[in-house]
């Protein structure tokens, strides 16, 4: 699938901002299943300096600094992205049992497995604890293949949790999400990750977008015109498999990847530190527009 993604953020301040340093993770990363055209970045007022770099996780980061006095900051990033239907997994793909996966993670000196081990550890937003392990237990039955177990957990979160954008903020602790059985995509991704980490399995957080135009005859997917988030679990010997608990699916061509990390904190789309400004209000709009393909037939492929 081919998309044009336009992500616009506007901050309004109640008083002058004299200096503002910012970091944006709004440039989609290239992967084996995702190709990106050069992004068009519009920042107003014009930054005195902007520099792109790769962070620790390989995400694209745009650092910019506004040195003119301003009361409004606008950041718009437009990127053409092609998502290929080449993500390897379905939930019935063969995978080792989750206990075998644990053993491989402990013992296998393969550099890729060593690299995945960092995602088993607690991170600021996702701290493993016994309640998450207990919640995961009915899905992670003895000897069950890892992908099958995770798909079951994914389904249970989707079924048992209410999507409620008014319930949580970035700062809502995960045990409260678990207790109240409600939250948004970011909470569900964090929750599934906490379950995996509590079992000793590596999980990473993925930020991105989701095409929400419903194909004829299909139900409308939640997360319309906003940033989206899901997670990936590492399957030893196979690689990272993605799951979207908000929509009970494995991401395919409609999921556009921006960045990944240990949790939301590593991939926040826009952060900044300013001098002055008083109080501020925020406006965000995201548009995921499907683009015509050279081969018309490809538009009809649905990967669910």
């Amino acid at each position, binding site marked *: 699938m081919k998309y044009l993604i336009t992500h616009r953020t506007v*901050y309004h301040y109640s008083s002058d901002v*004299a*200096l*503002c*340093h*910012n*970091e944006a993770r709004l440039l989609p990363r290239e992967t084996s299943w995702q190709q990106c055209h050069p992004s068009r970045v519009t920042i107003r007022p014009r930054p*005195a*300096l902007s*520099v792109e*770099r*790769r*962070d*620790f*996780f390989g995400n694209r980061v745009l*650092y910019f*600094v506004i*040195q003119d006095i301003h009361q409004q900051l606008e950041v718009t990033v437009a990127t053409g992205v092609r998502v290929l239907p080449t993500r390897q997994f379905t939930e019935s793909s063969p995978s080792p049992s989750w206990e075998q996966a644990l053993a491989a993670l402990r013992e296998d*000196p393969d*550099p890729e497995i*060593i*690299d995945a*081990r*960092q995602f*088993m*550890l*607690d991170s*600021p*937003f996702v701290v493993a604890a016994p309640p998450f392990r207990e919640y995961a237990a009915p899905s992670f039955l003895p000897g069950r293949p890892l992908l099958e177990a995770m798909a079951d957990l994914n389904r249970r979160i989707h079924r048992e949790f209410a999507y409620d954008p008014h319930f949580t903020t*970035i*700062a*809502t*602790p995960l045990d409260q999400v678990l207790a109240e059985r409600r939250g948004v995509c970011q909470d569900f991704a964090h929750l599934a990750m906490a379950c995996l980490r509590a079992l000793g399995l590596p999980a990473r957080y993925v930020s991105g977008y989701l095409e929400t135009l419903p194909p004829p005859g299909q139900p409308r997917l939640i997360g319309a015109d906003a940033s989206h988030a899901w997670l990936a679990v590492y399957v030893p010997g196979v690689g990272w498999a993605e799951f979207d608990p908000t929509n009970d699916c494995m991401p395919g061509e409609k999921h556009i990847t921006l960045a990944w990390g*240990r949790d939301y*904190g*590593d991939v*926040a789309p*826009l*952060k*900044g*530190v*300013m*001098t*002055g*400004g008083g109080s*501020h209000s925020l406006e965000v709009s995201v548009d995921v527009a499907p683009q015509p393909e050279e081969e018309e037939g490809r538009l009809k492929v649905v990967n669910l």
Partner: protein
Amino acid sequence: MIEAVSLADPNIPSTPSNTLIDDYPIPKSGYDEMYAAPGVLRSHWRDLARFLEETGGEELERRHAEVQRLLRADGVTYNSYGDLRAAPRQWRVDIVPLLMTGEEWSVLAAGLEQRSRLLNALLADIYDQRLALRQGWLPPELVYAYSGFLHPCHHALPTGSRWLIFHGVDLARGPDGVFRVYGDRAQSPSGAGYTLENRIILARALPMLYRDAPLRRLASFLETERATLAKLARHHPENPHVVLLTPGPNSPVYFEHAYLANYLSLSLVEGEDLAVRDGRVWLKTLGGLRPVDVILRWVADAYCDPLELRGDSLLGVPGLLQAARGGHVALANALGSGFIENPGLAAFLPLLCRQLLGEDLKLPSLPTWWCGHPDDRSYVLAHLERLVVHSILPDQPRWDGSRLDAAARARLVERIQAAPHLYVGREMLPLSTAPVLEDGQLTPQPVMLRGFTVVDGDGYRAMPGGLARVSSGLETLQAAVRQGGISKDWWVLAPTPQKHVSLLRQSYGPIFVTRDGNDLPSRVADNLYWLGRYSERLDGTTRLLREAFGRLLEWEQDSTDERYLDDLLDALDIPTPPVAESPRARFFALRQALLGPMMDADHAGGLRIILDGMLRTGRAVRNHLGDDSWRLLNRLQQRIQELPAHLGARQARELLEENLMLIAGFCGLNNETLPHHQGWLFLDIGRYLERVLRTLDLFHLAFITARNRGVSLWEVVLTITDNLTAYRRRYRSALHPTAIIDLLLFDEDNPRAVGYQLRRLHRHIGRLHQASSSPYRSAEERLILEATATLQLADIEALANLSPNSTHANAELSRLLEALRRPLLELSDALTHSHFSHAEVPRQLIAMQPQ
């Protein structure tokens, strides 16, 4: 070999019986630094032992007391965080140095240098290729679970730059005589400043011992550090601007930051003094932004940049990491270098040394087992009673396995098993002992050393000596000294006597030349201004109190008119005590009321509150005050904070009298020591603005609002301003209000007169640096002009008839005082607005800290 050099002081008669050294109770086991075995003095201690013996315990105690007095006078203390009231912890220095032979030292120094090279190589790898992880030399859990590993610091330095510039290493000698490393410090390797200060003070107290002693001097190490810092600059290699970044006066080791900044001739700055613009770091000064090339950083990694690191930090500079990444500013040490403080690394260093350097590790670490590895974990759990268990995370408790009861032990085992990768077990070795002077006797005490290295060319260079301290081996340096630890000077002996290089002469002198003027940080100007105001406020309130106690005593003796005491209480903002039954009861009530502002720590406007303000602002500009001023401020603090529990009126008066001399000394020394550039201008403006406001208040009280107006109160005004003599000499007559008004209001040559004070303020404000080149007067210039003109245009005819009963003249005076007061009050805000612009603190766009 060590030459036999006589260290004996010929002026001190030798004691008849040699007891000091002979009575030294050599420990039965372990390694003693002075004695190899009973009766076998190590040869390199011979000369020092002879000196101690000849000096004798009694004289040594006297010298010891002298050392502590010098330390206290210099304000060498560890502060408790944010608490001005808590008595600063005394940093005690033992006068018996710890000796090490040159041979032993060169082996140790080679080990330290190698360790710095190794840890630098590890940092360069871990924040870039991560070969150590991919090759399995280091387990990922030990790296990534450690909070000192900072993901944003990945590629935080331009290729080829050095991560570790300055490195502190904690060491101790075990029972086998072998040195082992207990810990590494990269973020704020405290101790080098204390080492210097110890050496200087001991040399002052024991000149005979230190002059021409065969010991390696420290100066060249510090010179290397200064040269290395300068070489880190990319932009102005010929004249780089190097600053020392401190968390500020609330840091427990602020003394050391100020001391080192002075010694190395660096600007002492706080995060809010700096800003990142155009990818570079700038110092906000009165004269505008000045580029910074190198930052000697004493703020912990995570707090240095609220954009990429801890968003809740108020100590850092937004954008600093990006500026470093771009190579536009060099940091010593680089951000992220706190990674090497991980105690679990010790278990992997021998392998890492072979792999990264191709060498065998020369200096061993304390035997360490990382519980993330199953075999090591089993070992730790099986040998808990012999080990100390640490969390690898900073600021976590430690468990001494030999002291745990069964329940505590079970809890610890549970902790370890829940997250084994977070724990290490370390073998507990007895530390070597060294003689420490206690009550005129030498006693053996366990010692720990902190050594230092600094980049020198392509390698590192170790400081010949360092900080030795009495230690249990468990606590950290900061904890030890915060609790009032004992430190020792660590000598590395040289084959021949070494000239004593006067560190003091090197360290003082150029500092004011470079610091004052337009490049003064605006935060410093702000603090100097308030230091001036508080010191004048302390003077004024002390004078009022002294006068009140004096009158109280006179009244007690002569039963003269005492009603104006009520007016003095008003001036001091003390409520008048209720009418008393007898003169005696009234005396006690008044005395009690007057003692409030002296004794009560929370009395609004009282001496202790004012002193707090002086200390807070004074500490923030520690580097701008002369050492003698600083000593006076310390004296003043002791005298105001450490009062006897019961104070009589006479005693109180005497105390206040002496304090006035100290305050006068403090202000006078500042006048005589600080060059009269921008910094001093702010200090002086603060003082005179405070004085003129107080003088106006005093007039207002004496002539307008007093309950008992008249001669007695006028006399009080003259004594409080110390102008009674001036009045008598000028008029040789009884007191006349018009004459007093002329002497204290209009006179432009009397420093106690409003006229003089306004003229002085006017002149100073005209000299302040103005940010814009506008042809118009600044707000503060307009305000002082308004006050000056008001005074000069006052209706002198009307005021000439001033008497307690002349309503017209009183109304005219009242109007004049108010017309003077208003622009002067506004002046303070105008100064703040024009010059102290640092006040605005950067904030996050979105609060990013998870709860």
